[in-house]
């Protein structure tokens, strides 16, 4: 019963969160956005006391079921282990149970050391690299980097079908621009989790995962725990042999020992026990002594399975990182792709308050990046903000009607912001690069940056002195008092940095290629107009 309920809930959470990351239609965040907001570490990062207390109370009540149900990386490992336990992969195909695990001594020193370093790094604000160990964000990176590209490809195939049949069910979505380092990090995480889980079940959760360690020591004090009724127990060791957390120790003549810091309350032991000796019971209930059984050894991994599984994982990976952009041609002028300028200060989205706030809170789960409809957010590749989102305007700009990233962020790195508030947050300011401007390179009149600036921060002014602006009609006059035909005088953009919000419309829509003649420089601390 426990196992079935656990599996059902885990499946719901797992599919929900996976869909939340994959989804490109916008319904994912409506339906399953709350699941990301329940993740432990992101809530710690934003000090959401209410949610942290709720999760701690849950753990104090039932033990580490968070790890079994809510954490998508935990469920992913159970999934891998479940597949590895299929009969076709077993050496002894007749056995009723797999019997592939064994009690292992707790690696207490390692667990506490990792947790300690992790906490120190986060408190010190240097969390970007160590955040790679965090389970939920690791899962987010895997889905975003390895699965979403396939999902988008499939969608785009359906969109082509949809277009051919003149219906509007599916539309083409441009794939996110992701650096290969993200795919590597995600692939290595996936591979590590895969190998650890098919051999050792929850090894990762019980040795490395800082959230697992923390909740494990909380779960030690939980009210309900898995208890062995020693009167019924025949010390057969089935529970030990099938405990993926390797936390049950069965010895003849000794009471069964369960390490509750590692137990994830999955209910597998309860299911395999032929004597119904295991139950979730309050801490106060008794555990009696009974004779122990002998151990058996059963190594159940063979080369073919290993090869098969690594091969599949490899295929998945290569399929995920194939190229994204194609250039177009026809009876049309060739358009050179935009190149990203070097920004002294990286741009972070409105709501992230400051580069520091982003660095300190973001767990690099990639949810905002997967959800950005304008292809603006990208994982950073610099060390102190590793894989955290930063903004680039070569494929689109931060459109005024969109607040998606602030809606989905579970970690408080991008705080909720309204469309109205967004118009007053200065995340950066535009800078003009005269050498690139088509007014000079092509000798045409332009002004597209000024035309599209949503905050009216750009005005076109004559390139040379000697002109005066009539404040009443907004026209320019030369020294002789004649109205200037602005098509004949080179007009260049002038940026009012007091009004500029750094949305990047000017940079994206600038006709100059590959480098725009106007680009946005970030603000370390966002300002309010």
């Amino acid at each position, binding site marked *: 019963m426990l196992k079935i309920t656990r599996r059902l809930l885990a499946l719901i959470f797992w599919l929900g969160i996976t869909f939340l990351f994959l989804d490109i239609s916008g319904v994912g965040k409506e339906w399953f956005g709350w699941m990301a907001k329940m993740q432990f570490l992101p809530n710690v990062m934003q000090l959401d006391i209410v949610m942290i207390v709720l999760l701690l109370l849950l753990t104090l009540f039932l033990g580490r079921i968070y790890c079994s149900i809510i954490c998508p990386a935990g469920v992913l490992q159970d999934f891998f282990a479940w597949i590895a336990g299929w009969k076709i992969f077993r050496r002894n195909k007749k056995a009723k149970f797999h019997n592939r695990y064994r009690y292992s001594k707790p690696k207490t020193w390692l667990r506490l050391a990792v947790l300690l370093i992790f906490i120190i790094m986060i408190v010190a604000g240097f969390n970007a690299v160590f955040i790679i160990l965090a389970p939920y964000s690791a899962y987010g990176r895997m889905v975003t980097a390895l699965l979403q590209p396939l999902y988008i490809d499939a969608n785009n195939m359906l969109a082509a079908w949809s277009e051919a049949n003149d219906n509007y069910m599916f539309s083409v979505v441009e794939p996110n621009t992701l650096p290969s380092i993200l795919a590597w990090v995600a692939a290595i995480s996936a591979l590590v989790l895969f190998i650890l889980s098919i051999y050792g079940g929850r090894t990762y959760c019980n040795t490395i995962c800082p959230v697992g360690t923390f909740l494990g020591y909380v779960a030690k004090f939980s009210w309900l725990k898995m208890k062995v009724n020693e009167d019924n127990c025949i010390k057969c060791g089935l529970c030990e042999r099938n405990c993926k957390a390797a936390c049950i120790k069965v010895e003849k003549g000794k009471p069964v020992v369960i390490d509750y810091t590692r137990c994830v309350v999955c209910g597998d032991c309860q299911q395999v026990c032929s004597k119904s000796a295991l139950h979730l019971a309050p801490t106060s209930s008794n555990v009696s002594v009974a004779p122990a059984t002998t151990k058996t050894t059963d190594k159940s991994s063979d080369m073919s399975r290993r090869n098969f599984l690594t091969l599949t994982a490899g295929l998945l990976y290569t399929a995920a990182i194939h190229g994204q952009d194609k250039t*177009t041609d*026809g009876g*049309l002028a060739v358009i050179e792709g935009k190149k990203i300028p070097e920004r002294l200060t990286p741009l972070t989205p409105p709501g992230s308050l400051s580069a520091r706030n982003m660095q300190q809170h973001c767990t690099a789960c990639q949810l905002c990046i997967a959800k950005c409809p304008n292809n603006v957010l990208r994982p950073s590749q610099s060390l102190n903000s590793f894989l955290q989102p930063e903004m680039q305007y070569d494929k*689109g700009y931060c459109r005024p009607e969109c607040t998606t990233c602030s809606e989905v962020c579970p970690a408080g790195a991008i705080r909720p912001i309204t469309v109205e508030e967004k118009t007053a947050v200065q995340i950066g300011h535009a800078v003009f690069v005269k050498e690139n401007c088509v007014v000079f390179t092509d000798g045409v*009149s332009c002004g597209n940056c000024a*035309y599209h600036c949503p905050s009216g921060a750009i005005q076109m002014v004559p390139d040379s002195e000697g002109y005066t602006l009539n404040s009443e009609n907004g026209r320019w006059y030369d020294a002789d008092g004649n109205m200037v035909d602005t*098509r004949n005088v080179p007009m260049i953009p002038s940026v009012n940095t007091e009004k500029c919000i750094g949305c990047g419309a000017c940079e994206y829509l600038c006709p100059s290629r590959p480098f725009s003649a106007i680009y946005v420089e970030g603000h370390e601390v966002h300002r309010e107009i």
Partner: protein
Amino acid sequence: MDRREFLKTAGAASGAAALAACGGNVGGSIAGLDPMGHHTDEVPIGKMTYRTNPNTNDKVSILGYGMMRLPNRQLDPSSDQRPTPAEEIDQEQVNRLVRYALDHGVNYFDTSPAYSRGYSETATGIALKASGYDRSKYYIATKLSNFSPAQWSHEEGVKIFQNSLKFLQTDYIDYLLLHAIGGGGMDTLHKRFLDNGVLDYLLEQREKGVIRNLGFSYHGDVTCFDYLLSKHDEYKWDFVQIQLNYVDWYLAREMNPNNTDAEYLYNELDKRDIPAVIMEPLLGGRLSKMPDHVVATLKQRRPDDSVASWAFRYAGTKPRVLTVLSGMTYMEHLQDNIRSYSPLQPLTQEEQDWLENEVARLYYSYPTIPCTNCQYCMPCPYGINIPAIFDHYNRCVNQGTMPESAQAANFREARRRFLISYERTVPRERQADHCIGCRQCVSHCPQNIRIPEQLRRIDGFIEKLKQGTLTSAENIE
């Protein structure tokens, strides 16, 4: 390659651009079955109406083949560079269309060095050769298309003409036109033809018989048209090509002060006994892709006739018309037009009045952009796909699928459809928001559309749609 296969290829190849380019009679096929299941309307052979050119006694088919909207095919079908694949002219298909046209009595083929990215003359030459018809059985019209200032010298003009002979694989041109005089006004006319002696050279060639008929095509500044006609005694124009259709007859000037009513142009030619070659009888297909309301009005009178056939019969009814050009991309357009003219059933005076007044006004009551997808503005140096943007917009207006106000019941669905189909038709970096207003396209547009202003108007509408700030009061108007 059969027709279905061709349509598939052409459709896939040029996507929306091909759709836009089909100056055609979509949804207006006349072919049908009788109650016994037999075809009632085979495409007739030998019934074509001909007009006589009084200067050379050429018997010219009233349907002329415009070689401007030739079928394209994707260069590398596997590359799938949607939505603008590399294209080339589908020569096989051009050969087939030209041969079919000749078989059904069409004998006037109108091309230009500028058409179809510069490949039209070559494709036309190949197709005519491949048809097996004797050179005397058809008439070739081409133009001196020296639009770029770099081509305004005498040498360049001569070179363009000599190249035409070469590309068309012929040693004489039946009909040669000064291409699109009026663009840029008198100044440009002087620079292109009068001051550099290019016109004198062409007159010389006519003396020698290399040019059998000399004329000009006109768009834009009417002073140029008037000027060249005032010199008729000196130049002896053999024909003049004008834009004529029932919506431009009385209303061209009213809709855009820079344009001239077809009534004026036609009557000026008629006064001087100059044969008129008609272009844009369908306005680039826009008179076949009419709003539902207009379609119903036309269909009510002649349920079996295509919407386009009205426009062709209208143009053919004018007695001074020598031939009516149609840029036929698809076999179905060709067949429908052959039916309309085999033989021509002239419109009654009442029908003409009705089209010129009521239908034309009804048509103009829809706020479409008068783009005929002639591609003269292309390629835009900044990569904007101007005709595709206008076509998408016009189609939504004509189909009545414009998302009109946030209060309307179907607004969400209409908005979604509009935005998705916009993305499908035009890739992001070729959309209207990338227009910088450099105005290089403006002087190229034969319809005198204020292209940058129209692009910004459409972009403004799309911004409102995206930001959800469209209210019932401020629609695209």
